[in-house]
Structures are given as C-alpha cells and as structure tokens.
C-alpha cells in the first residue's frame, strides 16, 4: 500500500473514528426524577439558609406593619402554589419530552424497516 493510500485511509479512519466517537458520546438522560431531586434539594437548602418565614414574620410584626399581614399571607400562598405548579410542569414536560423522543425513534425505526423490506423485494424481483 503506497503512502498516499495510507494517508487517505488514515484520514478516512480518523473520520470514521470521529463519527463513532460522536455517536458513542451522545448525551444521555439522567434518571426520570433527577430534576425533582435537584429542586427538592435546593428548596431544602433555601429554607435552611434563608428562612423566608423569618423574613415574612419580621416584616409582618415590625412596628406599624400588622395591617400588611393578610397581604403577606396571600403572597406566601400564591408563591407556594406557583413553585408547586412550576415543579409539576417541569415533571410533566420532561415526561412528555421522553415520550416524544421515544415515539420519533419508533416511527423512524418502522419506516426504516419497511424501506429495507421494500429494497429486498425489489432486489429479489430483479434477480
């Protein structure tokens, strides 16, 4: 094998290797409850580091500010509901994304299989 052929083959092999590396190192998903775990851990840490109720209580029971107590209570309730809703939305969205990718994979797989069968039939009919 001459040097030109060797270099050409090496470039081809490198290209194949790079393509295979990109496939081998494709991103993968963590466990389905990963995001929920992160949010739970962050929420727990937030409570320990900055107790929001202390800040709310400090604002509520500050001199002359008792009249704001109902408003603060309403904001806390809305905030808690918002956080919970956001969390649920994330969980639902991730599940939908996984299902979507699975559906696209199956669709493509079936189309490819059908195509291969068509090709086989065509090949046999030509023989």
């Amino acid at each position, binding site marked *: 094998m001459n040097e030109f052929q060797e270099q050409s083959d090496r470039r081809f092999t490198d290209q194949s290797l790079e393509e295979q590396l990109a496939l081998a190192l494709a*991103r993968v998903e963590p466990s389905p409850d990963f995001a929920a775990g992160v949010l739970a851990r962050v929420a727990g840490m937030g409570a320990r580091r900055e107790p929001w109720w202390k800040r709310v209580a400090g604002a509520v029971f500050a001199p002359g500010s008792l009249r704001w107590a109902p408003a603060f209570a309403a904001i806390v309730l809305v905030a808690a509901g918002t956080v919970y809703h956001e969390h649920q939305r994330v969980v639902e969205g991730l599940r939908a994304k996984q299902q*979507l*990718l699975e559906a696209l994979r*199956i669709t493509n797989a*079936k189309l490819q299989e*059908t*195509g291969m*069968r*068509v090709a086989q039939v065509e090949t046999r009919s030509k023989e």
Partner: protein
Amino acid sequence: MGLAVAACLAAPLWAAEDIHMPVNLDKLAERATETVDVTLDASMLQLASKFLSSQDADEAKAKNIVSRLRGVFVRSFEFDKDGQYAMSDVEALRAQLKSPQWTRIVGVRSVKGENSEVYLQRNGDQIEGLFVIAAEPRELTIVHIDGSIKPEELAELEGHMGIPHIGKNKTKGGGKSDDKAQKEEE
C-alpha cells in the same frame, strides 16, 4: 346499549380526523411483555417542545419537526408468543384509512408474516399525516403522526439523542409512489 356507549367512549379519539383505536387493541397491553403507549396532543407537544434545547443541534431539529405537528400517537406491543392479537383488529384500523384523504404508499408482506404499511394523509400537495402499521407475529406497532411531517427529517435524527442507527444499508422509496416514505441513508 350501555355497553356500546361505554365501548365508544373507551375508544380514544386519536386525531381530529376521527381515527379510532379499536378497543381490542388497547387491551393487548394485558398480554404484551412490553408496551409503548404514547399519546401527545397539541398541548403536550408544545410542552415537550419547551424542554427541547434550541442550542443543541439535534434537539433543535426535533423541535422544528414538532412545531408542525398536532399530535403523536404510538402503540407498540411485544409478545412472547405468536397469535396474541387478531388481524381482524388491525383490519378495523385499515378500514378507517380507506377514506379519500389517506393514501397507502407502501405495503409489504412477507411469508414470515411480517406486514408493513405506510399511509400518508394529503391535503393537496401538503402531507398532513403519517400512519404506520407494522404487524409481525410477536410485535404490533401502530404510529399516527398528525401534522406536517417529512419522513426524511426523522431520519436526520438517527444516531442522535439516543436514537440509534438502524442500519447502514441504502434504502429506496416505494416503487409505485411519487412520495418518499423513507430517506436514503448516508
């Protein structure tokens, strides 16, 4: 009468074009060793799309595909032995695809009992839907994609996002159709 009403209510409406999944097919999950059940309507597709990153080339492609869809519905059943489903149930589905809007562009049958069909729903020159029925002795897969879909765009996702290469052989489109049902692999 009550049972008939219940049966009608139990049959899920897959798309605005009223393709009903025969009730018997939904019960196959009880006999299947593996089941894939995906029902994503327009709102769920929109939600899923928000979690596809535009900064990732492959997810951006998927996002582009999904932006034109109204629904994605998949039922796939794997069995550990033959004869777990009746072809008459598949026939009930095929009967619904005989409407003028649907065109069967590929139909392949083998002596091993592996049957594959691909239907396209057209609106003039536009493709408005894709339907795949893949019936094998131990596996039945039904796919309905409602919306503007190009099968070659699906093939571009191959090898990425955990969607594995299926094969490296070149494939050609169905002989009697002027529409491509599959993309040639590189």
